[in-house]
C-alpha cells in the first residue's frame, strides 16, 4: 500500500521592512558600503535622467504618432491599420489572460487563427511595401519567427540524421550562415535575390526571407542541442518497442527536446526581433528607419537623444514582453521543477 506523503513548503518567513533591509542591504560593513555607494550612484543617475527627460523635446515623438506606428502608409489606409493593430493587441491581451487562468491551448489557437484571418482581411488593400514603422517591425518579426521555426526544426533534425547527404547539407548550411554577420548576409542577399527574382519579390519579402534563412540556422543548432540532450536510451527503447524512426522522433524525442529548447528558442526569437532593426541598412523603414527619417527632417535634427531613447524603450518593452511570456510558458510546462 502506498502512502501519499504530502510535502509542505518550508514556512515562509515574515520579515518587517527593517529586518529585510538589514539582511539584504546592511549585512556587514562591506555590504553597507556597497549599498551606500550604489544607492548614491543610482540616485544621481536617476535624477540626471529625470532632469533630462523634463527638458527634452518630446514633440518629435508626440507629434508623429501615426508616422511612428505605420510609417509612410497612405493616410486613407491608416484606419484599417488601426483596426488590425487593435485586433492583434486585444488578442495578445486575451492570450496573456488566458494563459494565466489556464484556458485550453486549443481555444487560444482558435482565437489566433480567427484574429489572423480577420487581420489579413482588414489589411488586404494594403500592399506589403506600404507598411512601415512599428507595424513593419512586428510584421517582419512575426513572419520570420513563424517561418524559421519549422525550417530550423528540419535543419536541426537533418544535423543529427544518420544519412550522410542530409547531415552534410545541414552542417554546411548551419556553419556557413553562422559564419557571416547578418548585415553582410542581408546586403549580399539583397543583391542576389533581386538579380534572380527581378521585382517579383518585394523588398519586405526579401528581408523576411533573409531573416528567416539566417535565424533557421541558429534554430537548427538549438534543435540539435535539444535532441542530443534527450538520453540515447529513449531512442533505443522506442525503437525496441517497434516505433519507426519518424515515430520515435515525433512522439518520443521531440516532445522531450522541445521542453529543453524553449529558453534558448525564445532567446533566439528575441534576438531575431532585435535583428529586424538591421533592415534599416538595406533601406526598409521599420521602427528604426522611421526614427531616422524623422531625424533627417532638419526641424528634428537636434532630437537624437529623444529619438534613440524612445527606440530603446520601445524595443525593450517588446523584448521584455517576449521573455516574460516565455517565463510564463516555462512555468506552465513545469520546467525547472523536474
Amino acid at each position: 500500500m502506498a502512502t501519499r506523503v504530502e510535502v509542505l513548503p518550508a514556512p515562509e518567513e515574515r520579515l518587517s521592512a527593517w529586518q529585510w533591509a538589514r539582511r539584504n542591504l546592511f549585512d556587514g560593513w562591506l555590504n553597507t558600503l556597497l549599498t551606500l555607494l550604489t544607492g548614491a550612484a543610482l540616485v544621481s543617475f536617476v535624477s540626471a535622467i529625470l532632469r533630462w527627460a523634463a527638458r527634452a523635446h518630446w514633440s518629435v515623438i508626440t507629434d508623429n504618432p501615426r508616422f511612428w506606428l505605420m510609417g509612410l502608409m497612405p493616410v486613407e489606409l491608416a484606419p484599417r491599420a488601426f483596426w488590425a493593430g487593435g485586433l492583434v493587441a486585444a488578442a495578445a491581451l486575451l492570450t496573456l489572460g488566458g494563459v494565466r487562468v489556464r484556458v485550453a491551448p486549443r481555444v487560444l489557437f482558435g482565437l489566433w487563427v480567427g484574429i489572423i484571418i480577420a487581420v489579413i482581411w482588414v489589411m488586404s488593400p494594403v500592399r506589403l511595401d506600404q507598411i512601415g514603422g512599428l507595424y513593419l517591425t512586428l510584421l517582419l518579426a512575426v513572419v520570420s519567427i513563424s517561418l524559421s521555426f519549422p525550417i530550423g526544426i528540419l535543419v536541426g533534425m537533418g544535423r543529427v540524421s544518420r544519412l550522410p547527404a542530409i547531415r552534410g547539407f545541414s552542417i554546411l548550411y548551419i556553419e556557413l550562415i553562422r559564419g557571416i554577420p547578418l548585415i553582410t548576409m542581408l546586403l549580399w542577399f539583397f543583391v542576389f535575390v533581386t538579380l534572380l527574382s527581378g521585382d517579383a519579390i518585394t523588398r519586405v519579402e526579401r528581408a523576411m526571407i533573409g531573416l528567416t534563412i539566417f535565424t533557421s540556422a541558429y534554430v537548427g543548432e538549438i534543435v540539435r542541442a535539444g535532441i542530443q540532450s534527450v538520453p540515447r536510451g529513449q531512442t533505443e527503447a522506442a525503437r525496441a518497442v517497434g516505433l519507426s524512426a519518424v515515430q520515435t522522433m515525433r512522439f518520443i524525442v521531440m516532445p522531450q527536446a522541445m521542453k529543453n529548447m524553449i529558453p534558448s528558442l525564445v532567446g533566439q526569437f528575441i534576438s531575431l526581433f532585435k535583428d529586424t532593426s538591421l533592415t534599416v541598412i538595406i533601406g526598409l523603414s521599420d521602427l528604426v528607419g522611421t526614427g531616422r527619417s524623422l531625424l533627417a527632417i532638419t526641424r528634428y535634427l537636434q532630437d537624437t537623444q529623444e529619438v534613440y531613447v524612445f527606440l530603446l524603450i520601445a524595443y525593450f518593452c517588446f523584448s521584455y514582453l517576449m521573455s516574460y511570456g516565455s517565463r510564463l510558458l516555462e512555468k506552465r510546462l513545469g520546467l525547472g521543477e523536474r
Partner: protein
Amino acid sequence: MRKFVGFALAVVLAVGLAAYVTQAQPPRSRQDIVRARGQLICGVDGGTPGFSFPDPASGRMVGFDADFCRAVAGFVDVPDVEFVRVTSATRIPAVLAGSIDVAFRTATHTITRDDQIDFGPVTFFDGQRLLVRTDSRINGLDDLNGARICVHSGTTSERNITDQMRQRNFRFQLITFATAPEAFAALAAGRCDVFTTDASQLTGFRATAPNPADFKVVGREFSDEPLAPIYQENDSKWADVVDWTVYGLVLAEELGITQAVARDAARMSALTARDPIVKNFAELKGGAGLRAVRSVGNYGEVYDRYFGPRVRTAITRDGSRNILAVKGGAIASRPFR
C-alpha cells in the same frame, strides 16, 4: 501510403521550385513591367531637404526628386508611385538588379558609374561647396589644412574633397556618415569643422535648420555635379520614358504650359490651336508629356515648389545653370516632333 504521399508532395514542390527558379524569363522592357504592375517604384534619398523628404503630416514623400518620380509615373500612365529610400549601400544593387525602376537620388553622372547603369538627362546642375559654422574662419578650400571634414559616404563629394586636400598636401581628418543629415548634425554638434557636399543640399540644410544664421556656405564651387536619374543599363525603351519625361517638363516650361493649364481642357485647346509645337506636345505618344505635366507641373513649377524664392530652401535660379537653355542656362529640352 501517407508517407508516399508526403514524399511525392515534397518532390513535386522541389521540382516546381527548381522550375520556377530556372524558368527563362523573356527580356521585357521596364516599361512593360511598370505598366503591368500599375505602379512605379522609384528610389529617392528621402532625407535631403528640397530634394526628397517625408512629410509626416500627409504620409507622403515630397521634394524635387520625388516630383520627378511622379512625373515619370504620369508619363507611363500608372496611377501610383512607391518611394523606396535607397542608401548609398543599396542604390546601385537596387538599380542593377531592377528592384527599383528608376532612382532620382542626387546622383552625379560620371564615366565610371556609367559602366554599370545608365543615366538620364541632367535635372539639376550642382557643384560642391563647403558649409561651416558662422563663427568659423574658414573661407575656402585653402583654409582647410588640419581640418576635420564631415562627408556623406559613398558620394562623389567624398572623393572630390580627398583629391583637393591631397593636391594641396593638407593634413585632414575625414569623418563619414551614412546619410547627409547625420553629417550636418555632426557639423552642428561641432564634431567637424566643415561639411562638404553639393551646394544645393548645403543650402537646404542651412535653410531648414532651427537657426540658419549659425551656418554659412563658403568657397567657390570646386566640382561639377550634374545630377541625373539612374536606371538599368541597356533598356532603351525605358530610357526613352525617363529621358522624355524630363525633356517634357522642360519643354512645358519653355512653352508656358503650367499644371493649371495642362489640367484645363479649354485653355489647352486654345493653346494647341495657336501653337503647332504645343499641339505636338499634347498629342505625341498619346499625350504622355502632358500627363507628366498634369501630375506635377512643368520644370519651373517643380523647381519653384522646392527651391523657389518663397520656400525656405530657396536657391537662386537666375544666373545659375539651372535656367532654361533658351535663356542662357543649361537645362535643355529636345523637340517633341
